[in-house]
């Protein structure tokens, strides 16, 4: 017979759950800068991004026991964030008619190179034609579906598989949206940097 009473076992279990919860909350909060960075580029204003991140953490802290320890917590948080964003009717913001013309992958380089006096300049000099602000503005103009793929993979450094899970779309769709999104971004950069 065990000499531990049922009460003591319960108390210990409760203490363990509490410890897990605290650890979960700490780990989630450590990722908040990265979650915010991705969120900020998925929506159009700082205010929207802050609301979305706050709602994400509120939901995550309530549903923390659904998170499987050892899996990608950052991806789990962003999956919640993406769902909340869709719930807020973000689909209504899409404007498929105003997508910029899609240019080839060398388009941006060719455009920037034209602005330099020397022939065949070093790629380093070509990239110097771009500023931080221009990049941020151009990214904001990429339509949502394409932008989300670029933001998750190129900025959030998620794998295709994680991005697919976060966005709830097949991996092949992540790849085609990423490919297209980068092209749209570059066309938009070319327009802004050369203007």
């Amino acid at each position, binding site marked *: 017979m065990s000499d531990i009473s049922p009460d003591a076992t319960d108390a210990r279990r409760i203490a363990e759950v*509490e410890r897990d*919860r*605290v650890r979960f*909350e700490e780990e989630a*909060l450590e990722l*908040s*800068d990265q979650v*915010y*960075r991705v969120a*900020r*580029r998925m929506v159009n204003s*700082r205010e929207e991004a*802050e609301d979305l*991140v*706050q709602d994400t*953490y*509120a939901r995550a*802290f309530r549903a923390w026991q659904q998170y499987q320890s050892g899996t990608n917590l950052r991806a789990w948080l962003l999956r919640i964030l993406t769902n909340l964003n869709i719930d807020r009717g973000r689909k209504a913001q899409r404007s498929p008619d105003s997508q910029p013309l899609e240019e*080839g*992958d*060398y388009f*941006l*380089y060719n455009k920037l190179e034209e602005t330099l006096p020397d022939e*065949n300049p*070093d*790629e*380093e000099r*070509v*990239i110097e034609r*771009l500023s*931080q*602000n221009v*990049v*941020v503005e151009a*990214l904001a103009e990429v339509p949502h579906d394409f932008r989300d793929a670029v933001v998750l993979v*190129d*900025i959030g*450094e998620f794998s295709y598989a994680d991005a697919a899970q976060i966005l709830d779309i097949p991996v092949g769709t992540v*790849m085609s949206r990423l*490919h297209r999104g*980068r092209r749209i*971004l*570059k066309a938009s950069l070319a327009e802004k940097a050369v203007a």
Partner: protein
Amino acid sequence: MAHCDDCEQMMQPYLDGMLSDEEVAEARAHLKACPWCERRFKFEEKLRHFVAVAVAATEPMSDALRIRLSELRSSQT
């Protein structure tokens, strides 16, 4: 031997590591012989990094939000 147009098509999947061995060999052979395309590939690599850095440096999370998030914790001590 690939043309510059084919090479342009291969750029994104090449940098993403999504090409077959055969295609990689084809792209490399072209890049070795074509500095024009090579500069564009190097530019693309640097551009991806530049975009990530530019975005990361802009508008970090506010302290107000950081505080609001920590207040959501169940176990504030």
